[in-house]
């Protein structure tokens, strides 16, 4: 465990930051859209879980399959 913590401290954060920020942007936009719409394809709470917990692919899956276009 200590090794992992050390390796986290060694990580070059400025390098990783853009990835983290963009993933976060993607997640927040998907989340806002999901909450604002009353109807989604399938239960809304499952989509919220998918968006928050499935890293990177969760928001994409929501935008592709979760939105209703009407």
């Amino acid at each position, binding site marked *: 465990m200590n090794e992992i913590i050390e390796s986290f401290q060694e990580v070059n954060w400025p*390098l*990783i930051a853009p990835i983290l920020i*963009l*993933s976060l942007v993607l997640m927040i936009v998907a989340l806002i859209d999901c909450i604002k719409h009353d109807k989604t394809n399938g239960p809304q709470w499952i989509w919220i879980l998918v968006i928050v917990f499935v890293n990177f692919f969760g928001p994409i899956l929501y935008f592709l399959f979760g*939105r209703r*276009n009407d």
Partner: protein
Amino acid sequence: MRSQWIILFKKEFRESIRNFKWLWIPTVFVLLGLMQPITSYYIADILEQFGGLPEGTVMELPPPSGAEVLTGTLGQFSQIGFLVLVLAFMGTVVTEKNQGTLIMVLVKPVSYVNYLTAKWVHLLILSLTSFVLGFVMSVYYTFLLIDTIPISQVVNGALVYALWITFVMTIVLCLSALLNSTAFVAFATLGTAILFSIFSLYAPDLMKGTPGMLATYSQQFFYLGEVESGFWISIFVTLGLILAMMIATIFLFNKKEFAKDVQ
């Protein structure tokens, strides 16, 4: 005539801003473009920490070259990127057809040419913008972290790959206009793209002069800076096919009866 086209184009644009396509598709491409050079840079550390190798294993990984990383980025775009683009746009005409909105549009004196080309141009602008943004980020990080390669090679390779994206996106639009099921549009488009890539990988001689070789040619630009013979034939065949598909679709779309598609 031209103002009608602009109205239809603006409608497409507004629609995909409203459903966030202009936000999330470029973001996905930028993320894909960033991840490739960064994981290549950290691959030795990642394997050491999380690879589950036995204690004391000495890893001797040769550092990847810049061309390798850029090829890897295009590989990501070809897999996840194409999947996202095709799934996002498979319904571009089909859903309008099935929901009945297409009839509402075409009841008015709207020309099929304008309707389809407005969709086509918008689709290309969105997918090529996403590709360029993602690829620029990838090139920047590759140059920063790994290796530089002459910028002219990068630009040439990217232009060739952009033509391949154009080709695949044209297939999406044409099939979406002609078929009645979104799933089948996605299946047929991705199937065509995969068949082209597999054949050009295993039987390059057979595929000489087809669109399938374009991805290979862009890799050759990255690695060598020059391409083998048959490159220009491929380019012109692809351009010809794109034009032929658009004309054929507009012609067939004209003949189709829409009324029976809507209950």
